[in-house]
């Protein structure tokens, strides 16, 4: 709280106590044997008025002291900064902070630095796998330790730079205050990010010391991809290990607890080892069962400085066969194209029975089997957009379209060419309605070989196959995660930035290059990192204003004791 606010509070408190002091006393009734002598003893006969003359100045002073101390303990004395700066502290919780007690030291340094910053204009962000607000302006610093109780560095690359840019973008929209960004940790801030800051903002770094991380061996990449063999229910896994002796490192790979055969082991250099495991299937795949966990560990690196990157794991998605019912549309060319596209995809089985179908392709599904997710064909006269997507319980149409663009493979369609061939613009839209299942509807003109080349393009079977998967709710395959790159969350995302500033972009930013391990030291691209050592000591308590508050409250306690004693002795009213 600022000094002016503190002063105003004290003055207000004094005024309130003064008014209270002047209010007529409400006496406690007490039965006595006689009032003969009290009548003589009374100093005056008081009129029944709202206010009395100011009496008991000592009582007033004691109450003012107690109230003032309580006010001070609540308000906390803050150093007033006249420069009007906002302070944004970025606490790095990336993988490199897991070295030794580096994260703890960063937290201590942050707590110390917060003492100098005005609470009303200070914000603290935790930059780990995601960016979280630890303290928003005005919040008590004592909350910091509590909120960091379970926080630990995550096995992710530094997100400081991304948080910095997003924060600057948001704050630019919110106000014109100058900002001071303070990086607490290792995360680097490139020149490009610095250039994006508004004029007047700048970045500082809080020194927390540096550790040497000699001889660290770690997993730098782990990923899945559709099997090269073409089997729809199989996946290939890619693992990369870097560090001294990586070429001969012992790598333990387990799928559902069972060892996995390494199909390809290649040392691109003495410090880089790449492994490929092919045709991974979970035991229940194809039967609609659960998924399995692929774990990678480096048993020989257990004692190195950064244990965080010695273990990685990823969940294999449940890849099921999709049963598609091709419903006649009345146009043999359309039916033929759709059937051919479905049969070309090994993950799709064309069935004749509507009861067995997962999705319907072509015309409307028979009503007796209930609503089926469907890929429908409609005329341009009946449908405004060339492609219309519907998903139940979705209110944000823009977000839906942005999300499904990659999932449906529409980003692979040469839209400009098709529009040119059709002689009219193509658009993507969403519909709303009361349906309970997903649906995608395309213009029938797109299927007419006489009008356009969509059915003859390479993107056509891809669109049909992806659409069938999306309609059936088949899981996505996140193809690749690696150190130095943000972890993708979707196949594709057409947006360069969403309205939510902390959302992790699936598209690698220009600032981060693939497999740029040197820029982030070692970072495991982990679905679930093993926990750091749990023996970190928590200082607890706090310092600075917290201790001051304790003293203030202790003085208040003493003052209350004095007041009680004086009251008991009849010295004060």
């Amino acid at each position, binding site marked *: 709280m600022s000094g002016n606010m503190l002063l105003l509070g004290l003055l207000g408190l004094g005024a309130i106590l003064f008014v209270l002091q002047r209010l007529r006393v409400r006496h406690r009734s007490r039965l006595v044997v006689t009032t003969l002598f009290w009548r003589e003893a*009374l100093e005056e006969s008081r009129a029944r008025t709202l206010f009395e003359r100011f009496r008991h100045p000592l009582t007033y002073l004691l109450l003012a002291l107690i109230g003032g101390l309580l006010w001070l303990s609540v308000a906390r004395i803050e150093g007033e900064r006249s420069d009007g700066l906002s302070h944004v502290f970025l606490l790095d919780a990336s993988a490199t902070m897991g070295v030794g007690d580096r994260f703890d030291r960063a937290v201590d340094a942050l707590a110390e630095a917060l003492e100098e910053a005005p609470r009303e204009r200070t914000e603290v962000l935790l930059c780990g796998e995601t960016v979280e607000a630890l303290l928003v302006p005005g919040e008590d610093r004592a909350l910091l330790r509590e909120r960091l109780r379970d926080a630990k560095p995550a096995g992710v690359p530094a997100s400081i730079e991304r948080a910095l840019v997003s924060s600057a973008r948001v704050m630019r929209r919110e106000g014109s205050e100058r900002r001071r960004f303070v990086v607490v940790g290792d995360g680097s801030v490139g020149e490009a990010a610095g250039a994006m800051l508004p004029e007047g903002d700048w970045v500082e770094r809080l020194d927390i010391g540096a550790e040497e991380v000699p001889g660290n061996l770690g997993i730098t990449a782990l990923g899945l991809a559709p099997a090269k063999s073409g089997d729809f229910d199989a996946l290939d896994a890619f693992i990369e290990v870097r560090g001294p002796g990586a070429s001969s490192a012992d790598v333990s790979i387990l799928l559902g607890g069972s060892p996995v055969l390494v199909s390809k082991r290649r040392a691109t250099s003495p410090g880089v080892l790449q492994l490929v495991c092919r045709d991974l299937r979970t035991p229940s795949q194809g039967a609609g069962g659960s998924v399995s966990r692929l774990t990678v560990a480096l048993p020989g690196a257990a004692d190195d400085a950064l244990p965080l990157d010695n273990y990685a794991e990823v969940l294999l998605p449940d890849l099921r066969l999709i049963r598609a019912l091709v419903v006649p549309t009345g146009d043999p060319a359309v039916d033929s194209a759709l059937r051919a596209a479905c049969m070309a995809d090994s993950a799709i089985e064309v069935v004749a029975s509507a009861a067995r179908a997962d999705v319907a392709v072509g015309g409307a599904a028979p009503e007796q089997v209930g609503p089926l997710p469907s890929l429908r064909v409609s005329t341009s006269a009946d449908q405004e957009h060339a492609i219309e997507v519907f998903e139940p319980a979705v209110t944000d149409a823009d977000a839906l379209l942005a999300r499904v663009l990659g999932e449906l493979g529409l980003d692979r369609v040469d839209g400009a060419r098709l529009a040119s061939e059709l002689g009219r613009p193509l658009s993507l839209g969403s519909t709303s309605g009361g349906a309970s299942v997903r649906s995608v509807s395309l213009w029938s003109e797109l299927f007419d070989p006489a009008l356009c080349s969509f059915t003859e393009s390479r993107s056509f079977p891809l669109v049909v196959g992806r659409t069938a998967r999306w309609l059936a709710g088949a899981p996505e395959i996140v193809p690749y995660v690696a150190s130095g790159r943000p972890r993708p969350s979707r196949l594709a995302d057409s947006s360069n930035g969403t309205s939510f500033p902390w959302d992790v972009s699936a598209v690698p930013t220009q600032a981060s290059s693939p497999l740029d391990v040197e820029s982030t030291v070692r970072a495991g691209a982990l679905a679930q990192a093993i926990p750091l050592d749990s023996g970190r000591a928590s200082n607890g308590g706090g310092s600075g204003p917290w201790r001051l508050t304790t003293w203030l409250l202790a003085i208040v306690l003493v003052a209350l004791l004095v007041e009680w004693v004086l009251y008991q002795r009849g010295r004060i*009213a």
Partner: protein
Amino acid sequence: MIQTSDTEVADTLPDLFTTEFMEAAQRLRLVAKRVAPRGRFADQRSKTKGSGLEFQDYRPYTHGDDMRAIDWTVYQRLGRVFVRLFEEHEDLPLYLVPDVSKSLWIESPPRVVAGLQAALALAAVSLGAHDSVGVFPFADDLSVLQRPTSGKGRLTSLAARMQTIQPGGTTDLRQSLRRLGGMRLREGLVVILSDFFDEGGLEAVEEAVRSVRHKVLLVQLMRPSDREPKALIGDLRLVDCETRDAQDVSISPAVIQRYQAAYDRFSEGLAALARSRQAGLLALDVEADVVPQIATLFENGRREV
């Protein structure tokens, strides 16, 4: 002993007599210097010359004198007839006037307990000396609980009657003692047992006591907190339990000093009244044992009034 809160009015009395209490009271003896004539024969020395054992004087024989009282030896010497006069022993009527107004029934223990115990102790002494005892409780007026009676056997019935006393109203000493005077009782000893907190103040007490034509013994029922009200702290509305008069008081050392000065003036006035009436005054601490305090009245086992 009755236990009440400080502001609660007790409505019943405990057992006032115990064996120890009676034995202690029997050792006391109330002795009058002289009692009024026409009384019953008893242990008190009377102004009347009568047929006692102790020779006191001679006087000339007059018609109607007992022939047996003629001193024939004097006749032989002087040739005139004189009769011997002996000291007549009569009774000393004791009129117990206990205050039973409301102020004596609050606080713990209530003052009425000590007051009635003191009255019973004095009654026991008097009845033991063949004196007559009457009990006249008062509050805003006097009532008759027991007309003057004598005999040791009366003690139990007297105690039983006292046990039935109920709380009275306000204190009106003038009206009560005026009523006592109107009863035209034979001159005796009036013992007033009260806190003397009359609404009329000390003036009312003085006026009332001076109107009594009997010998007077004042027993002031007090407690230490009367002068030093330590329990009263803070801002209080003090309500008189009898008159319901309310006084708003903010307790402070200065107020306490003025209160004590007022109380001291009252106590000194009461003592001056007793001196001027040649009456006894006993400040009876109601929180202490009654008999030892009553015993201070009877130095060497006797008390002359």
